[in-house]
Structures are given as C-alpha cells and as structure tokens.
C-alpha cells in the first residue's frame, strides 16, 4: 500500500507515493538521495538521524515517511545559505565539534532545533538539548563550545541587523 504524501522538504514542496511502512530516514537517503542524514543504530539510540519536523528535532529512523504528510521537514542539506556554512555549521567546523563527522549532521540539526527555541542557552540547557545525540569522538567538550560559539554569532548578527 502506498500513501500519497505531500511534504515540504528543505523548503520545497513535493508529492510522493510512499509505502506505508517506509521510514523517513530511508525515504530521505534512498528515494530523495539526501544522504547527509546518517544511520548509526537500529532505532532511536544514537541521534545520527536527527532532522527537524515542523521545527522540532526528531529521529528520522523512528518516523514513518507517510506521517510527514503536510509537515515541514528540514535536513542538514538545508542549512547552508549562498554556498556558505550556517552559524551552527561554522561553529562545529571552527571549534572542532566534528572529528569523524558521522554524528555531526544529527548534532547540527539538534543544535538548530535547540537554538531556534532558545537562542541563548546556558551550558546545562545545551547538554539537555543535545542529550539524544551520541558522539563517540569528541567527549562532547568541543560540541558544547561549538553550540556556544554559534549562539554568539547568531546573536551578534541579530544585534547588527
């Protein structure tokens, strides 16, 4: 059984016929070809597959693609503007929040969700906001620094505007 699904993916509306049991992660990676979102576990353990659904961080590996009918889905591929890294991406790059980079798309999307909701999080709030994402390389030290740097950059840009 296929479902007719209309979603907005990274700002573009699209219509797809999707099998009812297809996971959003497989839809993104195998059908659309957005492989930026990663699979690190067998379901709901690692956060590598984090995307935003209607602005909230969600596990794409635990979400059926069909339930995204009418939803707005954002993946790591949506963040760059005019070919340049977003503030959060830049924070992760410059502060070395990414080593092997496999957790990074999920981390960046979790941070994106967090900062949209709370643009000025303290360290504790960053920890809570990123708690569903496992990183095996960094010990999280520089991930926290990356999110802090990004929050600052966003704030300073807004001040300037």
């Amino acid at each position, binding site marked *: 059984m296929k479902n007719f699904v209309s979603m907005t993916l990274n700002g573009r509306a699209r219509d797809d016929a999707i099998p009812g049991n297809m996971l959003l992660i497989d839809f993104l990676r195998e059908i659309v070809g957005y492989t930026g979102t990663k699979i*690190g576990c067998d379901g709901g353990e690692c956060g590598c597959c984090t995307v935003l659904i209607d602005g909230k961080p969600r596990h794409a590996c635990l979400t059926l693609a069909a339930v995204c009918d009418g939803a707005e889905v954002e993946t790591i591929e949506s963040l760059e503007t005019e070919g340049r890294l977003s503030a959060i991406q830049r924070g992760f790059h410059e502060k*070395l929040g990414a080593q*092997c*980079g496999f957790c990074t798309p999920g981390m960046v999307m979790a941070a994106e969700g967090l900062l949209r909701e709370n643009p000025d999080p303290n360290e504790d709030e960053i920890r809570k906001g990123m708690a569903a994402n496992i990183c095996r*390389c960094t010990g999280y*030290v520089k991930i926290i620094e990356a999110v802090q740097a990004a929050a600052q950059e966003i704030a300073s840009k807004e001040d300037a505007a």
Partner: protein
Amino acid sequence: MNENMPIDPEKVEPVKSIGVPMPLVDGPEKVSGKANYTADFVEKDALVGRILRSPVSHAEILSIEIAAAEALPGVVAVVTGEDFVGQFGVLPIARTEWPIARDRVRYRGEPIAAVAAVEVETAQKALDLIEFEYEELPAYFTAEDAMAEGVTPLHEKRPNNVERHVEYDLGEVDKGFEDAALIREGTYDCAEVCQVQTEPHAAIAAYDGERDQITVHASTQVPYYVHLMLEQTLGMPRSKIRVIKPHIGGGFGSRTECLHVELVAGALARKCKGTVRITLSREETFITHRGRPEQKTTLKMGMSKDGRITAVDTTTTQRGGAYAGYGTVTILYSGSMVFALYDIRNARYNGYRVLTNTPPCGAFRGHGTVNVRFAFESLMDDMATELGLDPFEVRRKNLLEAPTFTANDLMVNSYGLPECLDIVEKASDWKKRKGKMEPFRGLGIACSHYVSGASKPVNWTGEPHATVNIKLDFDGSLTILTGAPEIGQGSSTILTQCVAEVLGLDVTRIRIVTSDSLVTPKDNGAYSSRVTYMVGNAAIDAATNLKTILTEAAARKMDVQPEDVECLGEVYRAGSQDQGMTFEEVVYAALEGTGTITARGNFDTIPESWGGDKYRGAAIGGSMAFSYAAQVVEIAIDPDTADIHVEKVWVAHDCGKALNPLSVEGQIEGSVWMGMGQAMTEETRYHNGLGITGNMLDYRVPTIIESPPIETHIVESNDPHGPFGAKEAGEASLAGFLPALTNAIADALDIRVSELPTTPDRLMEIMEDKKRESRKSEKEKAGA
C-alpha cells in the same frame, strides 16, 4: 602567474602552519552533510547484501542448504564459505578465519551464508530459507573454562585453547622483592568493551565482469590490509582489486583489521556480476566486535619505603574470542607496556591469550595497555597510601630519565611525564585539596603512555614504513597523495600542515587525496598511532624534496646557486634586494622540460627502536617514540544511589609537539572520555554466547549529560625523531582515566574498586559490604 595580486617581497614571509590551531581541512564537508561515508554511495542498481549468522556458539557444520534461497525471485546470489579460496587474519602467522564459516562455527553470530537480492525484504526472506544443519560442540564463554583440563579445542593447533602464552623475566625480580619494604598483590578485572564507533560497518563492492576487476568501498582503517585479504580470500590478483576508503565514522581500532563485511561484499559482487552494498546493523557491528577483551590481571609489586618500585610480577589473562585476530599482539603489548612507563628494572610477566566461543576481540584504542595500566596504577596508589606517601610523589620516585632504554629495550628519547605531573598537580590544586575533600568526594591521579607507531610493521615487505607523494602541476596547486586513512583523527589536516610548513605556503594552496589504491601510494593504515609520526615524517620528506626541485629551478632562472635562493613560500629570491620570483613563476620554471612533478618522501624507523630481543615477541612495543599523560579526576558520589558524578578532569599529555593544538586537544578529550566510558558504564555481556548488549542503550555509551568538563594541557617534549618533534596524541590519555577514577573512589570512600565498569550497582554492593563489616567489627568490639 597571478598578475592581479602583485607581491611585495618585502612583506612576504613563509606562512606558519605548525603549532597553529586549525580546523580540519575536510571540516566543511563534515558539517554540511556532504562528506560521503560508505553507505552514502547510493547506486541505483546496487543489490542489497545480507549475512546469515550462526545461532550456536560452537558446532561442526554438517550442511548449509542454499537451493531454496537461490530459487527465490529477486535473489541474485548466495555465497557460503565454499566461495572463498583462503582464510584471512591480520597477522600473517595467524590467518585462521574464513570470511564465511567453513566446517565449523566458533561463536554465535559468525557468518554462515550471505545473499544479494534486489531489496532488503527479499534478502531477509532468502536468509530464512537457508537451512543450517550442525552438531553442537562444547562452548566456552570464559577464559578459565576454555583453558580447563580436557576441553575441546576451538582450533586444532591450539589444544588447550591458549592462542599465545608470553613470558619474560627481566633483571632480578626475586631480589627486587627481597629488597622491598612493602610487597602487595592485587587482582583487577576489566569487562570486555566495544569501540561503538558511530558508523556501523559497511562495504560496497562493484564487480566489472568485462575486465574481471573489483572495486570495494570500505569503512576501514586499513584499506591496504583489506586489499591483501580480498586477494587472499577471493583468489583475485591484487592488480585487479581497487580499495577505496571514503569518509569513515570513527574507528578506535574496530577496523584495524579486515572484517568479514568487505570480503563477503566482494564475493557476492563477483558471484552476481554486479554491485552489492552491505550495511551492518548496530547489533551486527557489536557481533563483529574486535573490541578490548575481558581481562583479569594479578599484579605483585615491591616498593621501598620511599616509594621506589623494586620489582613487578604480572600475570594476566585475556578472553580473546573465537579467532586469533590481533590477539598475540594484544597480549604482547600488555607485557611490554605494563611497567615501561616508569624506571623499573626487575619485571616478570606471564600473559595468556585465550580462545573462547565469543566474538573475536581486536585492537581497541590504547591496544593492550589499558587494562594492565588500570591494575598497575591502582596497586601503586594503594601502596603509596599504606606507606604514607603522596600519589604524586610515588610516581615521581619512579620516573625514567630520557634518553634511555627501558628494561625491555624500548627506546625513549623524550619523556614529558614529569611536566605532565607538575601541571595536573597544580591545575587541580591537589596539594591543598587532596585528603581534605567533603565526604563522598575524592581526587585521583594516574599516568599512562602509548606508542607512536609500531616500529616493526605487521606485514614486513621491505618497503619503507610510509611513503607520501606530492603532485605539482601547471595550476600551481599541490596535491598530497597518501594512503594514510583519515578516520576522524585529523590526519589529512596534519599532513597538509606538514607540507605547508616546509614550503612556507598557506594550507589552502594544498589539497589532499587519501586512501584510494588506484591513485594513492600504499600505506599500512591508521593504527597504533602511526600516522602523524610516520606519515608525517614522510610528508615532510616529500615536501623537502619538492622544495629542492623548486629551489633549483628558481636558481636556474635567476642564474644563482641554489644555496643562494631563499624560499619565502609565495616568493623565491636571491638576496633581500631581489624582487624574486612568485611561487607560480618558480613552478613554471620547474615544469620546464619535465612536465608534472611528483615528489616522493619516505620514512623508516631506526633499528634502535625495534624493541630488542630479550624475550620472544619483544619487538611488540618497540616504537620511535612514546607519548605520556597524567590526569586527575574529581568525583562526587551520591551516598544513596552510589551514582558517581565526574566533576572534572585535568589532563596533561606529552605529544612531543602539538602540530595542531586544536586537534591535539580534541584527541585528548576524546581519549579521556572514552576511558570514562570503560571505567563507568560500558560492558558487552553475553548469555551463553548470545550478545545481550548489542545496542547503544544496553551498552551504555556516556551521553553529553554525564560527560565532564575536561581541562586539557599540552606538554611539548620535542622528540628528536618526530615530525617537527611530534609524537602521538590520540591514545595515551585513555588508560589513565580508569585508575584515576578508582583512585578517586578510594580517596572518597576508602574503598578499592578492582572490577570495571564501576556501575552504581557494583559500587553500592561494595559500599554495603563495607558498612556491614564495620558494623560487625563494632559489635565484636562492643562484645569483647
């Protein structure tokens, strides 16, 4: 020539790259989702590969019936052990593993067949149709059981299931104990742990029937070994094989040997004459394992009144799993490194590597050294306490003095441990706070070390240890070609910095291509922290050779002697009054008559670093340089739940020279944190050989919530042979965390935890026991 940007030679200086904190050269791809990992090469016509795994731990294979699976529509190929012509294994002396089991299965989850089908569901259905008949054999899940009298051997050549017994007796151990003021013995247990790199193993194999060639993308740290093992197991000439390592999601040693997945993908692709992609599940990644073995260590130590260690006697046993893997090396490392951190002349060792019916262990970060370091630093601390000595003082009493050789002939030319100790003592305010903490709070210290590459390679071929090529062409851009696998440790960045520094150019002028056997020079791989040291040196050599070519070309054009040419990076000139030539002009001059230039650089180890021959296997441990680390851990324990909260870690690591301080910090933080996981929560558990922690919830990797702030200090001892003085940065700091934590627990509770991980359950039990005992002795006192 770049006419748009006139260069003022007065203002030109060589650009500094070494010692500059720099983000990774491949960072933008990683943070934007553009970096492709093996599973990301989605090819439209690729088939899905799936592996059928043994439901039993030890059995003779009677038959594997695949006809029904083959007949299922949508199934393109089914392979079994019969589709391979040879066994694999990382050590040439121990190639005992079939990519898919033949004759016998030796652990639960061992591959017994594999299918390639048009989609996952079909592949899964096909696996269900395969009939496996077997006759069970006795299975052993602990080292003790496997070594008992009258056991059934897992491998014919190992009748008592001991893969390797290592022994040495250095100096005068008995006399050392006689001279001791205090002799103590302790037994320390470490659970088996798994690397759990975030990317599950994956491989894509594409077979070209027209040319009988195969291309394999693999999530590996050792593409060269994968290449060799494809040759060996598929019986294909190595010239018809191409191995590519794309971005990989961490390694930590889980991929320092070729795994089944690459070989099975290769066999399937060849059989179906197409492309097959296998992505293992997380559970299968746990079953593939190659982690750190469960290990029991009994350590006896003699100490003089003032804290000098007079003798050490170590007996240690590792539950190695069903195949040899790196096992012999692991048990040798435990022996060569256990005492060599300090100046100890009398040491005895008995190490047993045991074969058991559990998934094979491998080379986890800190290979072989971590669990014995835990034992050593724990006992040392207890003895210091008993003698009324400060833990820092006792460590200072036993320091080496570089340059020197250890009792087992390991060459030590740089030794920053004294400075590491000073730094963490001060940073943690140890002197003021130690022993004066509030109840249920404690401070603990421990030291650790690691090699910077093994001085003798696993596969001895007579080639140099490392080779790097730099290609220079008409566009003036330099391309580094290296087989050295970037695995997230930042090696591509470090190599770029090395080349940039020698040539005085900005790193943005330089590009790097890694780990594609079609274009990059062979490299042994990313393990034993060899890349920065060995490949870094080769990169410097290549850049130096290139600089010579450029300088000579400039000299020809300027009509001066090469020695008179000054290289300022973007400008080459003869004397400060000279207008000079731009880098592009020099490039054109150099290309005249020769065309595209490839400059090669090599690196080789020196015989003094080969680890001597005082016992069989003494070469393992031999390294050009050792890194050193000291760390202090502060904890607070909840008296009601026995939950340990790590408040802070101060760590100092001697990496020789921080080529890139930012990535050195990242490596150290990651190591300390990984040590924390092993110390506190991580443990692979089995029920009769069935893995019961094959996911990231039951196998508890620390989350960001409980991960402590880590204050990192870099010590630069400038190793005489290191690239710009550098040594390894990514492993040594792991081992210290384990004993630093339990030493902090001893400080807080006066309890010695000698079994890891220290879960709240375990600690609670020990706390309760202690309470009961003190109540009992109080009662006895009252009664008397």
